[in-house]
């Protein structure tokens, strides 16, 4: 049975676009066939008579390369011809009906880790069925057949058949038991760098992101949302814009209003011109200084214990060091602003959106349309960046409400300003660290954090006194302090918070790795050697630390006002260490010259894609640490575009060297682990260059110039 899938984002390995998206735009049903004559071997894969192999990807491609690396896991065991592989999204609706794919959410650097055993088994099973079909055809034992590049061979008789020839018979084969997986020594694809399956489409303009979806008769919606998150629409004057060219409707939303027009530009102009008043309540009188004081003061109040090892307070003997670290709210700011397209027809709700969670998108769309989840079809698209933001598709809810109201397909898109001001942010936090050193050694560590709860903000649930993401990177520190106390206080403001690349590790690694540096200096020990000693019980981390020290030339002389900083952090199952080298000029301007990263993710699927993820995570972490600060005035986010929420440019980007030092540990994640060490490595380098310790991010707010 030919599987018919709507909206296939797929490429052949050679890069030819299999199905032209713009040709499909005219197809009202959005119903497109997979390669002609293809036969399914289970829900994950299809093989065409010519051998073209379609592998379904159950996670979201937002840059991390899983449209290539997940198919590699299948193809490794399948022994197909990689040049004939293309990828397409798995169907969430089918997953609901058949539980075919497991969780399709993308986050927590989990895609490869969670797919590592299952997708290899998918490939091995399909291969075994193809072999069984060939063996039956030839009347030989399956064990006497071999496979290579999409062909089954029986050497003794010289017979061979391609997967394309065998696939219909293979589909009828039921295996008595699941075949064993290859030993690692037999890998031919895993561990090599293959051309990304999405490169060609992303270089010729044909890749379809959510914002590129077009439907016949589609209208466009632009939003005007209450500038104070959680506030309500007071009044609006639709008559003020209805006479504008192309404007079709003004539709109220929870917390805002939207203008619908026949073109997006017209909708956007009208939404900006629409007279509105807002009800903002007490939140409208808050600002960042109040929040900073609230988080700082909370550290002197009641705190919940997240970890207690030994007696940290009793062990605060010798040289006691105390430092307060503060971090701001941060926006995700993916390059593609949030957007979604919705089409309600025939009792169905069909939506197109770049989402990190098709299951949650289904729930949101069903709720907004007032239908059962079985009436929703979510078409995922390429994500123009996610970084956590596209886990909760607020824009999708709005698109469905508007499409339902106007009775036509609607593409709703946020402007950049809306995307930044109505983000769900990385929480603001204050983190107080105390520690003691004596005789050159660390004796005790006490950490306390006051931070917003993501559980409360995102899910509306009571998180209890401690939330794992609030203390990750503190409570589970791998450092061998004999006495550790980690406490927290969860405090939310009206500013919504959510997962931001590396989540709690982003602020906690900054505090921990800056503070370990402070302890090293207090102990009079080199920061690299100090860490090495504290990690004596973690030879795996020492290996990564040694690699980054060696490759960065740690300890070699640098010019005046240049400095190196080192940091190491374990997160998402991987270890990442970074050395940043900076130059700080007399006026205090910081230039990052070079970053050397060493990473142990257990097993590397594709070294080039792995290195790209580390580079990306470093740039993301440096950008935030150097420049970014979401500040609140009158309850409103003051930043709105890339002029006030700065993104690192080519000219600011350091040389980045990545060394992958995989060990035998279980396979780890890679989308996030490179981010947490970036900020502390940077600030430790600034200290080495200037003697100034940056304890409040971003660095842009610090005074690093030479005073005369």
């Amino acid at each position, binding site marked *: 049975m030919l599987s018919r899938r709507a909206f296939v984002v797929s490429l052949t390995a050679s890069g030819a676009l299999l199905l032209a998206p713009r040709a499909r735009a005219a197809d009202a049903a959005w119903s497109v066939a997979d390669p002609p004559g293809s036969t399914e071997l289970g829900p994950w894969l299809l093989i065409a008579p010519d051998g073209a192999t379609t592998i379904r990807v159950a996670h979201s491609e937002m840059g991390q390369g899983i449209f290539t690396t997940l198919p590699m896991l299948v193809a490794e065991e399948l022994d197909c011809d990689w040049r004939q592989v293309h990828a397409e999204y798995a169907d969430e609706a089918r997953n609901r009906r058949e539980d075919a794919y497991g969780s399709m959410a993308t986050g927590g650097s989990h895609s490869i880790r969670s797919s590592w055993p299952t997708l290899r088994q998918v490939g091995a099973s399909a291969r075994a069925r193809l072999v069984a079909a060939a063996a039956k055809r030839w009347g030989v034992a399956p064990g006497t057949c071999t496979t290579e590049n999409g062909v089954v061979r029986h050497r003794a008789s010289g017979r061979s058949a391609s997967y394309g020839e065998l696939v219909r018979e293979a589909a009828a084969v039921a295996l008595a038991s699941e075949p064993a997986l290859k030993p690692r020594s037999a890998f031919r694809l895993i561990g090599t760098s293959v051309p990304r399956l*999405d490169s060609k489409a*992303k270089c*010729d303009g044909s890749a379809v992101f959510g914002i590129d979806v077009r439907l016949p008769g589609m209208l466009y919606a632009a939003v005007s949302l209450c500038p104070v998150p959680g506030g309500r629409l007071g009044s609006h004057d639709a008559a003020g814009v209805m006479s504008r060219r192309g404007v079709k409707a003004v539709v109220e939303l929870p917390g805002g209003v939207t203008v619908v027009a026949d073109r997006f530009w017209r909708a956007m102009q009208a939404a900006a011109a629409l007279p509105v008043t807002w009800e903002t309540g007490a939140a409208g009188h808050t600002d960042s200084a109040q929040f900073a004081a609230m988080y700082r003061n909370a550290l002197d109040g009641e705190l919940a214990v997240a970890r207690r090892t030994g007696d940290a307070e009793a062990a605060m003997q010798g040289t006691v060091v105390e430092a307060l670290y503060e971090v701001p709210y941060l926006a995700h700011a993916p390059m593609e602003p949030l957007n979604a397209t919705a089409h309600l027809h025939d009792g169905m709700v069909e939506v197109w959106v770049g989402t990190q969670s098709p299951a949650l998108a289904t729930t949101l769309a069903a709720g907004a349309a007032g239908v059962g989840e079985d009436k929703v079809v979510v078409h995922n698209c390429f994500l123009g960046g996610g970084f956590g933001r596209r886990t909760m598709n607020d824009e999708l809810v709005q698109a469905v409400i508007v499409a339902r109201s106007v009775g036509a397909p609607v593409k709703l898109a946020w402007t950049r300003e809306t995307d930044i001001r109505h983000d769900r942010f990385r929480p603001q936090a204050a983190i107080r660290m105390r520690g003691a050193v004596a005789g050159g050694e660390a004796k005790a560590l006490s950490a306390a954090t006051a931070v917003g709860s993501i559980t409360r903000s995102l899910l509306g649930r009571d998180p209890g006194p401690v939330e794992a993401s609030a203390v990750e990177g503190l409570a589970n520190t791998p450092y061998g302090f004999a006495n550790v106390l980690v406490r927290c206080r969860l405090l939310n403001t009206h500013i919504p918070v959510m997962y931001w690349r590396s989540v709690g590790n982003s602020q906690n690694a900054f505090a921990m790795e800056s503070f370990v540096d402070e302890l090293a200096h207090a102990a009079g020990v080199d920061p690299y050697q100090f860490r090495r000693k504290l990690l004596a019980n973690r030879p795996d981390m020492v290996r990564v630390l040694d690699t980054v020290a060696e490759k960065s030339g740690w300890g070699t002389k640098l010019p005046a006002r240049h400095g190196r900083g080192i940091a190491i952090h374990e997160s998402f199952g991987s270890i990442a260490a970074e050395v940043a080298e900076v130059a700080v000029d007399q006026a205090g301007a910081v230039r990052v010259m070079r970053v050397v990263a060493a990473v142990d993710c257990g097993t590397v699927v594709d070294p080039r894609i792995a290195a790209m993820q580390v580079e990306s995570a470093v740039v993301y972490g440096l950008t935030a640490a150097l420049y970014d600060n979401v500040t609140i005035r009158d309850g409103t986010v003051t930043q709105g575009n890339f002029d006030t929420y700065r993104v690192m440019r080519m000219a600011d980007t350091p040389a980045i060297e990545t060394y992958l030092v995989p060990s035998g540990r279980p396979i780890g994640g890679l989308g996030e682990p490179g981010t947490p060490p970036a900020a502390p490595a940077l600030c430790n380098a600034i200290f080495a260059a200037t003697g100034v310790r940056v304890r409040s991010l971003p660095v842009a707010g610090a005074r690093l110039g030479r005073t005369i």
Partner: protein
Amino acid sequence: MVTLSVNGTQHQLDIEPETPLLWVLRDELGLMGTKYACGIGLCGACAVHMNGVPVRSCQMPVGSLAGVAITTIEGLSTAAGRAVQRAWVEHDVAQCGYCQSGQIMAAAALLAANKAPGDAEIDAAMTNLCRCGTYPRIRAAIHRAAELLRG
């Protein structure tokens, strides 16, 4: 009526002349490779060529473009453009890919004017933003494209 030449095709469009070229390309002509990301000319995701010169289409009122030739990523066919696209694929520059049409248009224009740009010239010409941080690979791919162009 507004007259516009895009990728060698003339268009007569009944549209407000102040509409930015970006939205005309995307919503009137269906050329979706040119992206919206900031709308204020800062990020370069909407870069196209105007008579071969890179411009930010979100800042170009369509009524001001009579008599000029616009080229988008879909119509990029110069030697420099082809070399850049080939180098981009060779180096697997793209991650999320959203900004890459604009990056490629900027790089193609740079290489059309300068067959062997140095790093400082690349820094000066490549002001487009990329949130995935593909800059080191963009730089390497520009050097590779220059090599391809020199044969």
